[in-house]
């Protein structure tokens, strides 16, 4: 039986997440790629604000005993190569795992093709033709002496996370956000005038987006834990579960995350319809569509080998200071830069 509470909790968090992603145009692929491609740093600042917000929230919840840290594992070759391949795939797919998911809701058929690739690639790697490659790449796990996952601060993660998060957040606000606000002539941090227009009719400023993404992830963790899955947001495992269910009919594959990812599509749809940005559209150049499919498969492979995508490892894993997640995140950024160079920067 499908547990209705799990379904509702997952789908509602997903709708919220998807709506924020869509209105905020939050895309990690663009964030990392544009550092080298357009010398544009707004989106990556937004990612850093999201991460520091998560560190603070996770730290408080950890100290209060609301959640217990559950960092992802680290395998020597799996984490490095998984991250690299994921990063290269996301440039080809024109979107990270979360970006691809919410854009399906915006009506972008190229992202739908990328998403099918992601599911297929993840399935092949987790339980199919490529599972041998996965086993080989993950054959050198590096753990604590007792077999638990390695994290930078071990048992002290919540207190260190809270401190690092708070300091990082304060620095980001002081050096990045305040100057922008002064420039705009808007010294009020929260300006509630024309709220309806700001939420529904225009894209959100990058700093608002980063902080809200962080807050959504903080809300998501205890709700996900209550549904039997002790982890903040993720994307790839959700699509993998949905695909396994669709192929096998086995309801055991459905959980909080599989409903959450469907919610992200719905949230993207909701945000784009209200903002009058919804439109079914497809790249004119068929080659782009093919590249998006290949990129999706690479992302699926990389996410399974590295035990998480840009959300599971980057957004949810870095604030838990998982060594594996930090290595995968480094691989994702590097892979993204390599592919962006190959595709867009050679004249």
């Amino acid at each position, binding site marked *: 039986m499908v547990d209705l509470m799990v379904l509702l909790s997952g789908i509602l968090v997903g709708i919220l997440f998807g709506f924020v992603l869509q209105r905020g145009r939050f*895309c990690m692929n663009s964030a990392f790629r544009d550092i080298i491609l*357009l010398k544009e740093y707004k989106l990556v600042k937004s990612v850093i604000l999201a991460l520091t917000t998560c560190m603070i929230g996770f730290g408080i919840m950890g100290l209060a005993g609301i959640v217990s840290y559950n960092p992802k594992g680290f395998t020597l070759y799996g984490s490095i190569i998984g991250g690299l391949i994921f990063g290269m795939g996301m440039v080809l797919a*024109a*979107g990270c795992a979360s970006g691809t998911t919410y854009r399906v809701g915006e009506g972008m058929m190229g992202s739908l093709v990328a998403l099918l690739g992601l599911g297929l690639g993840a399935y092949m790697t987790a339980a199919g033709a490529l599972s041998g490659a996965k086993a080989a790449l993950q054959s050198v796990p590096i753990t604590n002496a007792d077999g638990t996952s390695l994290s930078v601060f071990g048992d002290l993660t919540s207190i260190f996370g809270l401190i690092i998060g708070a300091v990082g957040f304060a620095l980001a606000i002081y050096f990045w956000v305040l100057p922008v606000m002064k420039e705009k002539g808007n010294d009020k941090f929260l300006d509630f005038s024309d709220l309806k227009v700001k939420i529904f009719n225009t894209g959100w400023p990058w700093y608002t987006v980063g902080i809200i993404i962080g807050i959504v992830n903080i809300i998501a963790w205890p709700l996900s834990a209550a549904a039997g899955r002790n982890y903040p947001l993720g994307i790839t495992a959700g699509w993998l579960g949905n695909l396994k269910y669709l192929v096998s009919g086995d309801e055991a594959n459905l959980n909080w995350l599989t409903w959450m990812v469907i919610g992200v599509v719905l949230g993207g749809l909701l945000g784009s319809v209200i903002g009058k940005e919804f*439109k079914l559209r497809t*790249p004119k150049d068929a080659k782009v569509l093919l590249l998006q499919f290949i990129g999706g498969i690479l992302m699926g492979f990389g996410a399974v080998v590295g035990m998480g995508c840009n959300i599971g490892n980057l957004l949810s894993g870095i604030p838990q200071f998982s060594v594996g997640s930090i290595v995968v995140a480094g691989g994702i950024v590097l892979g993204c830069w390599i592919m962006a160079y190959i595709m867009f920067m050679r004249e």
Partner: protein
Amino acid sequence: MVDITETLDCLGDVCPYPDVKSKRKVKKMKSGEVLKILVDYPLSAERIPETMTSLGHEVLSSEKEEGESKWTILIKIK
């Protein structure tokens, strides 16, 4: 009314194609010419004017079509 020198159709293109195409296009154009960019991808529609401004070009206008996900951006090359 401005004289449009060239039109760049990025309808259907996903990020970063509109950004990259428009950046490459303006590089090839001469000073004073006007480029019209059609784009239907929200992030690019918001970012192209910013990128162009930072490159020193003048953004003559950037308008969203009423009730539709489609923007027209006019750039005057520096």
